[in-house]
Structure formats: C-alpha cells, structure tokens
C-alpha cells in the first residue's frame, strides 16, 4: 500500500476518486501519524479522532451514493486554531479561550465542509496570532520537524509543521504580517496569503482586521491552489470580501510557462540583514527564473523601509480594540469573581490572567498609539505610510507582473533564541509585512537548503491585488524546475521523525 501520509492532496484525490482508498483509511493514516509524532512536534492543540473518522465515513458514504464529489473530498486538513469551528475548541493559542467552543462555523470551515475536506484538528499558534515562532502559544511551542530544537515560524507554526511532519497534506493558516509565508519558508512548505478580501474573514478571530487574511498551506504549489479554490470567494457576511469571480489558480499552477513574464527584484528586500545562505539560494532562484525565460529586473520600493514601523502601530492599534471583548463577562476565562471584586476589577484580573506577555505588550502599544493627542502622530502617520507602500507597489506593477524576495531573513532559529528580543523577532517579517499593508497577495515556496545550516529557505512571490493566479503561475513553474533539479521534494531531505 502506498504510504498515504507522503501523498500530495492531488494524489490522495486521485486515489480516493479511483476507489483505491477510502477517506476513512486516509484519515486513519494521518491520525496515526499525529499520534506517533505530535508529542515531539506539537503541531496540534486539539485532535478529535472520533469526530474526524465520523466525518471521513460521511464522505465515504456520500461518494458511495454516487453524489458528485469535489476534488478535495476526503482529503484531510489541519486547521489553525484561530478559526471558529462549531462545537470544537477554538483557543487562538490563549488561556483566555481555553474552554470556549464556538456556537458557529467560520465561513472557511463552512466551505471546507462543503468541499468534503476532512478536518483533522486545530493547530498551534502564537497567542492570538501575535508572534513569528509559535513560542507565544499559551500551550507550549511547536517544534520544527527539520530540527526539533528550532522554531517552525509563526504565528501559524502549527499548520506549517503539520505539513512538514506529514501529519496533514493540507492546512489553513492566517497571515497578518507573514504568519502563513514565514512558517512555510522555515519548514520547507508552501503557503499563500491571498489578496485581502479574497477569503472570508467571518469566523477568523481578529488580530488586526485590516491586515488579517486566511489562506491555503500545502507541500506543493498545486495542492495550495486546490485549497485556495476551495476557500476563496465572496461572502456576504464579510463586508470587506471581494465580490468577483475567483481566477483558476490550479490552471495557473499547471501552466509552467514563464516566457515573457516580468519579474521584479525588490531592491529593499534583498540586501542587508539576510543570512548568507538565504541570499545564495535566492540568487540561484533568480538565475533559474531567467533561464526559464522570465525577464528579471530590479525595482525599488523606497517606502518599504518604513513598513515595519507602520505595521507595529496599525496592528497593535487594531488589536487593542479587537481584543477588548475578552473581559470574562460572556465567555472564556473569568478571574477574580469571588464576590469581593467589582466588575472592573474582574475584567482587569481576567485580562491579566488570560493574556500572555506579547499580547499585553501589543495591547499597551495600541492603546497608547490611539490615545487622543497621539493618534495623528502614530496611527495617522502609519496610515500615510500604508498609502505610500501601496503607491510603491502600484509603480512596481506597472513594469512587473510579479515581485520576488526571500520570504524571511534567516532560516529557522533556535527555540528561545529571540524570545527576549521583540525587535529581533519582529524583523522576521520585514519582507512579508508590506504585502499585508498594501492588501495584495504573496506566496512562499521552498527553494533549497541554506548551505551553512541545512535548513529550508523560502522565496516570496508577490502579485498585485486580485493577481493571485500569477503567484501560482510563477510558483508552479519554479517548483517544477527545482524538483527536476533535485529529483525529489525538499521534505525528502528532512531527518526522519
């Protein structure tokens, strides 16, 4: 029997459709893998084996009845624990929501159900998606399958690690400043932050509403495209949702033709501060693009230098307001309700007990930045920078179809290494943040291992608003060329767990 956990979603889909395997068998294989390795990886916060098998059985029964089945029917998936799933724990990696079970489904979850995707469980993350290493999860860090002493990126480290550890072929992440792309880069997997508004945010517990976007994660560009198609599209429950047809991402991923494509190398994102091995692999990828017929040019986006500063005003500001609802009054943790404390005191004690240090740090920054007298200098100025960044992108996309950069400045660092240095931690997202600020889309895909540490390096492709199919065209072609060079998937080089 084929090793089911090593199959791509596309391969599983073919096996399921041919009747060679059942959704039940596929689910069992992945649940067994989770049982075998997740104690060490800790990609998952919640796995409900019974629920998952019941869902798989429903999908098998539906297929047996002769019903038309979607391409991903019966394929398992790992869901980031920031998306509301009815009756299932949804903790956002926080003590605040330890025992909360939502009474409703996120639209992404509804769409996954409609596509008959089988959800394996909820994955670990930095608390309320604040972090770049998954170390800020209240439930302990996730370990990078490439080296268990290293971080898997963040905030969606659990989702990325579940793919790299062959616990799931598909995963959902969310990306506010790089939380899909940076974990993909450091785990040797693929992740896409779609255009803002392409995937509904309804049921995504908000970090920063104007930056958050859910997106697909997988081990190949084509699988990512398949998942993208399953979750994207207009949702009347999300006012910021884009009301227009979704382009065919799968066809774009399969096109493998880059002739005439103009690729911009962002000057501000390819130089200082990047690890030597990251730069080396990136330069090789650039050369490969040229050899594939693409026209690579350098472009400058001078406002990107201010992106990180603007981001760390806008994000905390919105987060300070979004997280105000966690006060112990209606759901989740409640502390100090002993008849001695006032309502205000209970709210304060609850928030002090329920939030971790990074969350408290950002709430305080955001509260300060929005204060009267400071608003114009901080939040107001940051919004102006945002406009400048959008203009830089617009200018770049007049001469380029896509832009590229390394996804993250370094490969996976050691757990604990940057925990006490917030600024160093924030710099992980320097290349991914401009995309969130402008609202356009980006992909990270693996382009090799850094020679100095043997850890995966990711390349970021950036496309304009609603140009998500270009990510898949540029990514699919590069992936095919790299696989032809290597003769295998990069994860084959990861040490066995």
């Amino acid at each position: 029997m084929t090793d089911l956990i090593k199959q791509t979603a596309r391969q599983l889909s073919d096996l399921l459709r041919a009747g060679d395997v059942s959704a039940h068998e596929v689910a069992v294989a992945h649940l067994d893998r989770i049982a075998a390795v997740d104690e060490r990886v800790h990609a998952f916060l919640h796995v409900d084996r019974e629920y998952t098998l019941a869902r798989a059985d429903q999908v098998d029964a539906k297929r047996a009845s002769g019903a038309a089945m979607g391409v991903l029917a019966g394929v398992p998936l790992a869901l980031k624990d920031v998306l509301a799933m009815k009756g299932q724990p949804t903790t956002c990696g926080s003590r605040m929501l330890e025992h909360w079970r939502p009474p409703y489904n996120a639209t992404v979850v509804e769409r996954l159900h409609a596509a008959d995707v089988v959800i394996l469980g909820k994955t670990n993350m930095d608390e309320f998606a604040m972090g770049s290493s998954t170390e800020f999860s209240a439930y302990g860090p996730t370990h990078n399958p490439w080296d268990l002493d290293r971080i898997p990126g963040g905030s969606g480290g659990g989702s990325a690690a579940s793919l790299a550890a062959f616990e799931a072929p598909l995963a959902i992440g969310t990306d506010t400043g790089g939380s899909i792309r940076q974990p993909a880069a450091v785990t040797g997997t693929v992740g896409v932050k779609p255009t803002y508004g392409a995937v509904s945010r309804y049921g995504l517990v908000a970090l920063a509403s104007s930056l958050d976007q859910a997106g697909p994660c997988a081990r190949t560009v084509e699988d990512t495209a398949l998942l993208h198609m399953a979750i994207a599209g207009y949702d009347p429950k999300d006012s910021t949702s884009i009301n227009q047809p979704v382009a065919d991402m799968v066809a774009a991923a399969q096109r493998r033709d880059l002739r005439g494509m103009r690729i911009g190398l962002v000057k501000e994102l390819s130089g200082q501060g990047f690890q030597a091995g990251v730069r080396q692999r990136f330069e090789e990828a650039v050369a490969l693009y040229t050899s594939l017929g693409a026209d690579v040019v350098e472009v400058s986006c001078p406002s990107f230098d201010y992106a990180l500063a603007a981001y760390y005003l806008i994000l905390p500001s919105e987060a300070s307001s979004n997280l105000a609802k966690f006060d112990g009054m209606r759901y989740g943790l409640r502390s100090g309700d002993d008849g001695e404390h006032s309502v205000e005191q209970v709210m304060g004690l609850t928030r002090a007990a329920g939030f971790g240090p990074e969350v408290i740090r950002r709430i305080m920054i955001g509260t300060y930045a929005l204060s009267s007298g400071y608003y114009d200098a901080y939040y107001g100025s940051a919004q102006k920078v945002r406009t400048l960044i959008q203009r830089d992108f617009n200018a770049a996309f007049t001469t380029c179809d896509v832009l590229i950069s390394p996804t993250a400045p370094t490969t996976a660092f050691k757990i604990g290494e940057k925990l006490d240095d917030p600024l160093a931690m924030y710099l992980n997202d320097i290349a991914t943040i401009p995309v969130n600020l402008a609202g356009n889309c980006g992909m990270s895909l693996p382009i090799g291992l850094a020679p100095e540490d043997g850890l995966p390096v990711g390349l970021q492709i950036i496309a304009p608003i609603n140009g998500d199919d270009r990510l898949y065209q540029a990514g699919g072609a590069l992936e095919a060329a790299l696989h032809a060079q290597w003769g295998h998937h990069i994860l084959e080089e990861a040490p066995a767990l």
Partner: protein
Amino acid sequence: MSKTALLMDFDQALERFDPVLGLEVHVELSTNTKMFCSCSTTFGGEPNTQVCPVCLGLPGALPVVNEKGVEAAIRIGLALNCEIAEWCRFSRKNYFYPDMPKNFQTSQYDEPIAFNGYLDVAVPTDEGVMPFRVLIERAHMEEDTGKALHQGGATGRIHGADYSLLDYNRAGIPLIEIVTKPIVGAGRYAPEVAKAYVAALRELVKSLDVSDVRMDQGSLRCDVNLSLRPTPQDRFGTRTETKNVNSLRSVERAVRYEVQRQAVILTDGGKIIQETRHWHEDTGLTTAGRVKEEAEDYRYFPEPDLVPIAPSREWVEQLRASLPENPALRRARLQAEWGITDHDMASVVNAEALDLVEATIAAGADQAAARKWWLGELSRIANERGLGLEELAITPAHLARIEALIADGALNDKLARSVIEGVLAGEGEVDAVIAGRGLALVSDDGPLLAAIDAALQAQPDVAEKIAAGKLAAAGAVVGAVMKATRGQADAAKVRRLLFERLGVSE
C-alpha cells in the same frame, strides 16, 4: 445619595445668567433587523433571545451594515435640512462596559452621515408663539448597547447591587444620534425651547415612519447639556450633561432645574464640574454621576471591519423627493383647511389624533364631527383601555359611515355610541352592527305619534302648558317618547311632531 441642591429662583437666575443649551437625542430605529446583523429588534422579548454571534460580539464574528438603517439616517438628515455625506465611515468608540459585547461601540466620529441642518420650532411664550430655529450639528448612525439589570440594590442602580444580569437583545439595534449646535438666544425660554425642539423632532421622526419615538420605552432618549454665562457676550461656561430625561415634560423641567442649580453655585463663586448628571423623574432633581478623574479617551479610529458608506446622489435625491410633508407645515395647512382655532388644533395634536381626524374627514365626515368623535368618545375609551387611538379597532371609514347615517337621521348620538361599541367589540361593519343590535331610529311617524299620544294622555297638564306658551314643557313628552322607543327616536323629530299635533308653532 441624592441631596437636594440649593436652587435659585428661576427669574432671578435669568437676570444674572444667559443659558446655553445643547441637546443630544438618540432615536432608536424601527428597522426589522439590527444595524449590523439580522437579529430581530422587537421590543420586550425574553432576555438574550434576539442575539447572534455578531451582536454578541463573539470572537470572529463580523458586522454587515443594514441598508435600511442607512436609509433611515439619510431621511432623518434630509428632514432636518442637513447635508448628506458623499462618503463617510463608521468608527469604533472604545470603552469597557459589560453591556457592550465588544467593549467598543460601532459609531460615527468625525465623518457623520448627515451634518449642518436646522429644525424650526414653535415655542409657546407669554407673548404668544415664538418661532425659533435650532441648528443641527450632525446626525450620525451607531448601535445601541445591551441592558444591565442590577439585582439586589434598592434603586435598581449599579450602586449597592449584589449582582447584575445582562440582556443583549437591545445590543446592535440601530440608533441615530442627533446633536444640536449650541443653542443660544433662548434666554428665559430655554426650558420651553428645549421641550419644543424635542417635541418637534419627535413629530418629525414619527412622520418619517422610521422609529416608534416612544420616550417611555427608550426609543427616543434625550441628553440635556446646559451651561450658564454672565452675558450673551461671554464665552460658554462649563456644561453639565443630564441623562435619563425620559419625557417631554422632564426635558423642560431638567433645563429649568440645571439653570437654577448652576446659578447658585456660580453666584457663590463656585465652579461647575463638567459631569454627567442623572434626572430623577419622581423627585424632579438631578444627581451627579460618577465623577471622572480625567476626560474619557474613547480612542476612536475608523472601523476596519466595515467599508465606507458612499450614498449616491441619485439615491439621496430619491429619498429627498419621497419625504413626507413636514409635520409643522402640514398642521398649518390642515388648520387652515378646517378653519379651526390654534387651541382646537392643539387639542387634536395633543390627542395624537391628527392622522385619524384627517382620514375621517377625507372619508367624508364633517371636520367638527370627526374631531368630536376622536377627541371625545374614542379618546375616553382608548384611555380606559390603556391604548393609543390608532390601536382601537375602529377606522376613519367606520366613523365617516356613522356620521353619514346621523346626517340622514338614521342614527342619533346615543345610537352612534352603541354602534361604536359594537364595532370595537368586533361585531362587524357599521351597518352589520346596526342590524345586529337593532339600532335604527324609529323613523315612521305612526309609532312616534302613538307614543306622543300615550305620553300626552299620561301627563294631561303638559298639553295645557304648551298651549299656554310654556314650550319647555315639551321636554317631558319628548323624554317619555324616547323612553318608550328605547332611545331609538330622533328627539328633534319627536318635538316637531308634538307641536304639529298640538297645532302650536315653535
């Protein structure tokens, strides 16, 4: 607790100070669904039965703007002669309070949907009605909060309560907040201006059919801002904001009270504290709310979960064209058409019978008769039953039919009251009630003459008195005939037949 403040005589206070008013009125819209979700807005439901993830602010839920709420806001803005924003946004007003599910209120801050308007009001004064223009600063959209029900305290207030229960049925119901510019120049009529403004605003909003505007149910709520200054040439003084002003009468009283209270403090060289005060309907006092150490910082910023509102000019013009007639102008027009006095018109308006009287006249009744029925018999019945006139199961068409039958001599007032009783009791249309109750007047002369003869026989002295010119004696016969016909006779006709019988001319 509440201590009676020293008050200065009102006239004396006005000799020393010039009052400056500001009124903030919250109107709860009567849309079917809430402002940002599809929950019902019906008043009085079991607690927490009209809620969903959105209005409970559950993690992950997102708001979607209720188009009908925007439409109502624009119509209110247009009726208040405001400009309508071509582009505006919602903002978040951040503060912690348990009745607010998200701990921020989705409101509008520096980009209201409507701004720069005015409302002309008629203020009753000793010298007659004074026209006064109240300038409107803005009208903006926001969501209502839930309700905290404080349990165990004596007063139902949070102070002294053992615990509180929260009902989120009201959370997310659309509100329009209408804010005046500082109202200056009202002088000693500041209380009357305030009352007249709220009354006119209530009438205007009611005419738009966008709110119940029931102050007793909180669908119209008024906050009164007031400050005093030595003369109209001085800068504005420190203001207080009086909340919980829940009737028109209270608006007037609260202004009067604050003028008198502040005047004492200022005269004694004291300072007015900028604070929120609560109006107490029962005692007619205001008491200080929680004293804030520093000004509340709401940390407003544009609501990122909603897209900007950009009402097209075509839509705004459509809404403008479809506005109902301004109620004040309509009142003046009807009064002229009916040819009635200011006092009579005020009675119709105060009885909230204007629409019904107008409709009854339109259905063919005489204006005096229409007013008589609605303001008399029907107001009495409605009052007895604790209902509004509109809630009575009788229509202007019913009354017009009754009036037509009276004019034809087929009914008299007494029978008409019985018909009304029957209609209200659900016995059918007017003619069916008459048939069912056997209420038609005895109109044949035969039975009436027989009854007259019987009455004359029974009271032989009456004929003599009438013959002697004492026409008033006829009353006794008419009374006897009415009694004999159980009221189903036209008294005037009986009187005429009696005189004919006796050969007497009136």
